[in-house]
């Protein structure tokens, strides 16, 4: 499609080509600049990337400067301003994908298709690169092809994919089992086993007064499931009491490496999530809600739209919900485009408004100044699902489960070295050891709780419990056995933070890259005790100066692994004195690659290493 249009090159024809697909998109989004990200995403689905002519058209149609459009587009990993190939392949590069051999598969696909990683093939057919965790750790290695998820990559599957791409087979005609994403639910508790007839929780809520429903949520002691654990009842109340047009936002930007519970909730329990959002809307008086779905879950979009339209038919959304004349509420789905930081609630709101996903200055908080500066509740997918059950069964019922500080249950996304990766729902207070036993993990060296920004737990701590009082978690539970190198685990996470830093504040923008370079320095065998002190200093700076949680937690994986798995670092420390990161011989590697030489004459003498 792209090459054809380029041949009929007169400018006017080109512009018409872009206008042709842009106009319906613009109309669907009411020419609103608040929907800029959605417009760009849909434009790209049509054309493969955002053409300069398309930006001209959008700039006029939306009355925004093109620099703003380029600024927004440039922020998101999945929006391209340059051609990226008819097939855009992104290998998920979480540590769990690496443990399952994604690097070998990437190299294999690159060599089969004659393309270098990160580049586009000369014929414009394909580009192959890596991306942050795509949320398929229980069925990896995984990839996205034109933003659609492919799971369980094997050498056979890679060979087949190379052939399909070479033959230019449209994605829709690829074997369906490549896209067969499984739920892998291993343990159900109240959230996953309670049957909810669509509308039942809402009816129960409508039979009570609004105050009574809010009271049930507060009584339940439900706390936010995104990890921070703010009281849900209090959040709803603060929002309800703030003047303005209220909004409900469901944070389904599940980007924390190793987390995939929201994927399963949205795939098989979407009614509970939407019902929880609708109950929230009733309580805070919202007429409009959003589900912010991470771009990696694009494949769930059509399914979720179908659930929404069924719920509209069932009068569970729309005007006069369940015959309640004063209750109008509907939900839109906005897709993200590859930006972990948008999981931070104020960055998510910026993104919902079609902007760069930069966290806002707080206070004020979203409960008073959220979407379009109006009072907004932003809750996690799992929080809304739990809220629907509380509306149905009452707060006391829920509060009786779990611990006194952490009521209810928690979904864990278990992946890594275990026999049965998948979703496990436990009451809060369950020990790490219990989860390890249930998922069939043996010889376990460490567990990374709550993803890259969470905490790394070593064997002597497996008696610790999941809960806000001990190990708070957004759900990730990555298991590492003794064959794993915990230094590489930390290095993977540090690279992740550097890639996902939004770049707004100095400490995080520069600090995460500095940290990344330091870990590479260790990896290249140039680390020294001096570098430990440097990492400590950097951590202090990021903790105290960063704008948001991303910067605050970027050093966690390194500090945890230094404290608990020091030998993994020591074995890389050939030197006791300071060693510069710069390595002259390694700096010549590009010259060697260009000249095709790798003989001794193309290397510097390495006598300094024998000291």
């Amino acid at each position: 499609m792209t090459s054809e249009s380029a041949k009929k090159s007169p400018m006017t024809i080109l512009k018409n080509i872009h206008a042709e697909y842009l106009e319906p998109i613009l109309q669907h989004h009411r020419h609103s600049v608040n929907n800029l990200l959605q417009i760009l995403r849909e434009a790209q689905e049509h054309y493969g990337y955002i053409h300069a002519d398309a930006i001209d058209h959008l700039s006029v149609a939306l009355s925004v400067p093109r620099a703003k459009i380029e600024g927004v587009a440039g922020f998101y990993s999945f929006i391209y301003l340059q051609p990226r190939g008819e097939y855009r392949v992104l290998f998920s590069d979480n540590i769990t994908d690496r443990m399952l051999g994604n690097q070998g598969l990437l190299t294999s696909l690159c060599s089969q298709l004659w393309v270098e990683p990160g580049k586009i093939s000369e014929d414009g057919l394909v580009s192959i690169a890596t991306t942050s965790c795509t949320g398929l750790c229980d069925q990896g290695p995984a990839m996205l092809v034109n933003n659609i998820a492919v799971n369980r990559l094997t050498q056979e599957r890679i060979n087949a994919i190379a052939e399909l791409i070479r033959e230019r087979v449209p994605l829709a005609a690829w074997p369906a089992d490549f896209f067969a994403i499984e739920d892998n639910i291993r343990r159900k508790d109240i959230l996953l086993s309670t049957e909810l007839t669509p509308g039942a929780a809402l009816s129960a809520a409508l039979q009570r007064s609004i105050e009574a429903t809010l009271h049930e949520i507060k009584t339940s002691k439900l706390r936010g499931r995104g990890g921070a654990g703010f009281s849900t009842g209090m959040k709803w109340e603060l929002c309800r009491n703030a003047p303005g047009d209220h909004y409900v936002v469901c944070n389904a930007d599940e980007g924390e490496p190793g987390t995939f519970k929201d994927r399963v909730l949205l795939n098989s329990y979407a009614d509970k999530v939407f019902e929880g959002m609708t109950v929230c809307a009733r309580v805070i008086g919202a007429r409009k809600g959003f589900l912010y779905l991470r771009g990696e879950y694009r494949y769930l979009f059509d399914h979720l739209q179908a659930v929404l339209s069924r719920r509209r038919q069932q009068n569970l959304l729309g005007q006069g919900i369940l015959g309640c004349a004063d209750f109008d509420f509907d939900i839109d789905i906005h897709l993200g485009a590859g930006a972990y930081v948008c999981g931070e609630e104020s960055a998510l709101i910026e993104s919902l408004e079609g902007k760069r996903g930069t966290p806002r200055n707080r206070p004020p908080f979203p409960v008073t100044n959220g979407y379009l500066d109006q009072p907004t509740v932003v809750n996690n997918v799992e929080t809304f699902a739990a809220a629907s059950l509380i509306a149905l069964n009452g707060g006391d019922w829920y509060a009786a489960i779990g611990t006194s500080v952490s009521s209810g249950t928690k979904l864990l996304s278990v992946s890594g070295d275990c026999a049965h990766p998948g979703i496990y729902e436990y009451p809060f207070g369950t020990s790490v050891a219990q989860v390890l036993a249930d998922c069939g993990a043996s010889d376990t060296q460490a567990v990374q709780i709550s993803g890259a920004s969470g905490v790394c737990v070593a064997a002597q701590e497996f008696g610790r419990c999941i809960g806000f009082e001990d190990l708070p978690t957004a759900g990730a539970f990555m298991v590492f056995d003794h064959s794993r190198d915990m230094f590489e685990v930390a290095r993977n996470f540090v690279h992740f933070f550097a890639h996902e830093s939004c770049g707004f504040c100095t400490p995080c923008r520069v600090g995460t890259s500095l940290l990344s370079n330091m870990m590479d320095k260790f990896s290249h065998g140039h680390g020294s005790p001096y570098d430990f002190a440097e990492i400590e200093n950097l951590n202090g700076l990021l903790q105290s100066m960063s704008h948001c949680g991303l910067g605050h937690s970027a050093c966690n994986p390194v500090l945890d692994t230094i404290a608990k798995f020091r030998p993994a670092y020591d074995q890389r420390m050939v030197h006791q004195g300071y060693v510069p990161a710069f390595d002259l011989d390694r700096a010549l590697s590009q010259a060697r690659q260009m000249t095709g030489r790798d003989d001794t004459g193309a290397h510097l003498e390495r006598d300094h290493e024998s000291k």
Partner: protein
Amino acid sequence: MSQNNNQPASFELDGKTIPFQAGQTIIQAAMAAGVYIPHLCFNPEFKPHGSCKLCTVKANGRQTASCTQQAQAGMVVESDTKELNDERRALLQMLFVEGNHFCPSCEKSGNCQLQATAYEMDMMSPHFDHFFPDRPVDASHAEYLLDFNRCILCSLCVRASRDVDGKNVFALSGRGIKTHLIVNARSGHLADTDFSGADKAAQVCPVGVILKKRVGFAVPIGERSFDQQPISATPHPMKQEG
């Protein structure tokens, strides 16, 4: 929000009493009282941005950017402490290694807020490894030059062009360490924008990105603003509020 105006509200900054008006942030009140808090992305003429983090202070024991933190009566604020100045120095070092800053040959030397603040914070070396990014210069415009090597992403030009000039000549694109300044032209060149030397945006760059051509070194090095006195003693080059 409404303050009792009989007795002006005040907070304590490094032991000094600083009066403030409702709505003022810590740095705004400090500046009005003639107390210097190091800063780069803050400029009293523009809405605070809070990105460089150099103005971070401890307010009631909690670290926060003083340009965005509203002053509150009775607040105890620490700013000129070893701990904070050490951290500010590290931030400055980060800014130096992130871009390509060669002060001896830079036209802005002596008038550069980054350089002057680094002197103020006793920065003696860049400390970190240089990134040496590739940032081509844009010399397309007849009157002005853009040397992106020196950009610290403070976004003052973005704000000035958008909020004062009503032009949107500048914007930030990219993410993370790849964040960069762009101009509003399909070609990506300043010459193809409606930028003019009369724009506010032409005057706000705290470093040496936006430079007028053909007037280089009109004032000799040694006689420039921060050669005369340190930045902490120099009234802000822009008009002050209050």
